[in-house]
């Protein structure tokens, strides 16, 4: 099997419009969570969201402005990752380079606009001379879940497979894992992997509101509304944005003299087969064990876990217990944090964003905290790096967890790369 390495990454999210500013904000425990846009607040006054810190359109050409917002985020993050990897495009081995994307709600913004336009035209007397069925001809190719993957292949001339994974909150963790496997087992030599999501629109948020999993705004400071592992946690905050990675075989990266950010060393994946939304200790622990096993690491060799940590009542306790089950006595030593306390839950983008942050932590020895953790829940008894980042840590290997509605569990392990 081939060793697989990460040679570039990029981020556009509520904490920053690039990787450096996002990681710096996370180390400062700054929150990107706040009030939601007026058109949503009109119907849902009691929710908070994590909007991307910049409109992706401002980072793209005019010809990209009609694309769905999730595709726009994906293009911005992919451009950063490809630039950092020093990846000349189209590459001469373009048939051996794939594109793997994870997204939860494909084309959510475009779908919402379609319905809004139809009903507005139908109900607004000043528009009665217009046929409500007239829609933009590219509505379907903008909504399709693989719109981002298609856009990236075309922009960079990548001719390998372009696969899109929609596995709720685990979408981009699975995209990374499957791309890693394809390279590891020789089907491909490199891949651009992106996790993206843009569902801060009225329709999607009405759905989330009905599920009763979203945090209530903190009365004194809305930016503190998402409090993972805290005794007063009250749910998650939906965020938007994208993160991207360029991964390739170690031999390809060595051949072209590329800098390596980390080795992708393990991918574990399991299904609970139990409940639509309730998490399971066995399923989560199994994913973590598989990832450790594939990486050939003992639990005590992992120094940092970026937890799924959504700040739901059940989720944080189950994940804590899962880490105990998978790590045994090493669970007491490992530092764990949920950066969702700051950037919110990017759903399809979450796995990629959190792995990129974990690899930053691996390389600089600074671990991002779990923000707003003033009152730890006694049932959550691990070291969650509360409130403040921890600097000067020696980190050899990191884990990033993503557990999805539908019972899909993914755990990824990255480690320092030692050139042969």
């Amino acid at each position, binding site marked *: 099997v081939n060793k697989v390495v990460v040679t570039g990454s990029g981020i556009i999210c509520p904490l920053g419009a690039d990787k450096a500013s996002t990681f710096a904000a996370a180390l400062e425990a700054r929150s990107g969570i706040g009030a939601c846009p007026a058109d949503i607040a009109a119907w849902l006054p009691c929710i908070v969201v994590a909007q991307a810190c910049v409109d992706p359109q401002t980072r793209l050409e005019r010809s990209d402005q009609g694309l769905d917002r999730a595709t726009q985020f994906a293009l911005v993050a992919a451009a950063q990752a490809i630039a950092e990897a020093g990846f000349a495009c189209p590459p001469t081995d373009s048939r051996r380079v794939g594109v793997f994307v994870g997204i939860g709600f494909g084309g959510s913004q475009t779908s919402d606009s379609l319905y809004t336009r139809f009903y507005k035209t139908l109900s607004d007397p000043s528009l009665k*001379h217009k046929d409500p*069925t007239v829609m*933009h001809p590219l509505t379907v190719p903008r909504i399709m879940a693989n719109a981002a993957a298609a856009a990236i292949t075309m922009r960079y001339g990548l001719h390998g497979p372009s696969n899109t994974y929609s596995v709720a909150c685990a979408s981009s963790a699975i995209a990374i894992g499957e791309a890693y496997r394809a390279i590891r087992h020789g089907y491909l030599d490199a891949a651009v992997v992106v996790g993206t999501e843009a569902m801060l629109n009225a329709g999607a948020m009405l759905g989330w509101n009905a599920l009763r999993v979203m945090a209530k705004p903190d009365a004194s400071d809305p930016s503190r509304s998402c409090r993972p592992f805290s005794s007063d946690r009250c749910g998650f905050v939906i965020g938007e944005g994208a993160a991207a990675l360029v991964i390739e075989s170690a031999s390809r990266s060595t051949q072209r003299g590329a800098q390596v950010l980390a080795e992708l060393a393990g991918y574990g994946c399991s299904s609970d087969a139990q409940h639509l939304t309730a998490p399971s200790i066995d399923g989560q622990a199994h994913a973590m064990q598989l990832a450790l096993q594939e990486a050939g690491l003992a639990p005590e060799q992992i120094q940092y876990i970026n937890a799924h940590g959504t700040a739901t009542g059940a989720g944080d306790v189950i994940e804590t217990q899962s880490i105990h089950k998978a790590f045994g006595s090493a669970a007491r030593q490992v530092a764990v944090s949920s950066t969702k306390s700051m950037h919110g839950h990017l759903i399809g983008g979450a796995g990629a964003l959190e792995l990129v942050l974990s690899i930053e932590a691996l390389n600089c020895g600074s671990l991002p905290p779990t923000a707003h953790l003033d009152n730890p829940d006694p049932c959550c008894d691990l070291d969650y790096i509360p409130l403040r980042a921890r600097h000067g840590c020696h980190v050899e290997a990191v884990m990033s967890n993503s557990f999805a509605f539908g019972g899909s569990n993914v755990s990824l392990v990255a480690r320092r790369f030692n050139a042969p």
Partner: protein
Amino acid sequence: VAEGAPNWCAEAVNSTARKISVSDRIPGVTQVTSMLFDQIKNYLVETAGVDRQKFENPELKVADLKLDSLGLIEMLFEVEDKYGFQIPDPMIFLPMTFSEMVAAIDTMVQEHAGSQALKD
């Protein structure tokens, strides 16, 4: 006019060719036609990347715009969105000059406005 194109289309082209052949700047051309000409031209120049110079040529062909089938219907959406109706067959415009197309669309806009007035 394309073979198999509906009769009204041929009529539209013939009746409006007179208006259009003298370009959109000359009196006698309907205001809507002139607006349509500019609206579509501006879209093509600013969003689809068509060279502005091309529109100086009164014989400019729709085919010379080098739009693919998606590009063609995206261009028509500029009109559909503004006037609130769907243009039934985008392919009829392919053999026309740009001015003939604008004239044909103008006729459709008028017909749509007429049918709406009848409803009122």
